[in-house]
């Protein structure tokens, strides 16, 4: 396994966040325009929900990817720290569902 440099990790995380927020914005814009243009159809609602879902998932995925990145660098302290944050976010998801 090749070592992932910190620079590379920073760029990977940056790209991931960029893709997440762009995908979310496209869904939200389409859903919003459809709703404003003509009513309350199922496609518009699905697009809006998907937009918010992707938006909220992005930071959670970012934390998980950081953890993998640090594992590939064998930086166990930071693997632990990022896993703790990931666990804390999972706890929020559990709290949201119950």
């Amino acid at each position, binding site marked *: 396994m090749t070592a992932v440099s910190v620079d590379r990790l920073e760029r990977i995380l*940056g790209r991931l966040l960029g893709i*997440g927020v762009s995908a979310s*914005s496209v869904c939200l814009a389409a859903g919003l325009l459809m709703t404003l243009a003509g009513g309350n159809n199922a496609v518009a609602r699905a697009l809006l*929900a998907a937009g918010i879902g992707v*938006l909220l998932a992005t930071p959670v995925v970012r934390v998980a990817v950081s953890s993998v990145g640090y594992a590939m660098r064998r930086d166990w302290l*930071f693997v632990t*720290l990022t896993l703790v944050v990931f666990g804390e*976010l999972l*706890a929020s998801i559990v709290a949201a569902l119950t």
Partner: protein
Amino acid sequence: MPAITPAIALVVLTAGVAAGGVGALLGIGGGVFLVPLLHLALGFQLRTAAAISLATVIATSSSVSAARSGTHLINLRLGMVLEVATVAGSLLGGFTAHLFSEPVLQRLFSAVAVLAGVAVLGRLNRRNVVLDPSADPGRLGGRFHEAESGGTVTYRIKRLPVALVASFAAGNVSSLLGIGGGIIKVPVLNAWCGMPVRAAAATSAFMIGVTAAGGAIIYFGRGELSPLAAAPAVLGVQLGSWAGLRLAHHTPARWLKILLVAVLFGVAVLMVMRSVR
């Protein structure tokens, strides 16, 4: 919640532009302005306003961090250490909300904002940089190329426990007030922890997405985050942060600090007004 007509959507979008712009400049999500606007001016319920605001904080965080990646301004290591505290704070937020009434929390928040503003003001002309590019930044410090001084600047992190406490506190009030807490993290990192204002802003912008995610997920799961109302705000934030990033690059650190102080004092006044309503 008011019906989302094209006119309301446009107002919310414009508010998002302002929040995103300030967010990109100062590394704060802008939720501190968005919540009172949605709640007091547009008549959204406080919880709905807070939920929408948290969604925009995540959007600011993602887009600003994406644009800043590769510049070394984001201190990943420090960010990940502080995230442990900030998300823990957010998880325990419900507990705090139980202990303090909302007006008490808002007055406390105002006091912290004023204190932080005074601290940043006192350091307006002092810079947290070691200009020797070969200096050792330590385990949590960093270095980056700065256009303003035309060189590579190095900084060390001091008083990590203070940064941890500030991050915990920021996370703690996050979902209740609908903020990412950058307004607490940036001045504390700059005034007490040895971080240059640009690096503090970039690192805070990186962290606030994770701070806000916990609260936003809970609001969404309980059906209190309306995607239709959040959509224009999130889209506005994208436009605002695009503009703010272009501006931030050309703004001297001194002016960033002055803007930060103005925002801190403004927020203190807003919070006191909210608490006496």
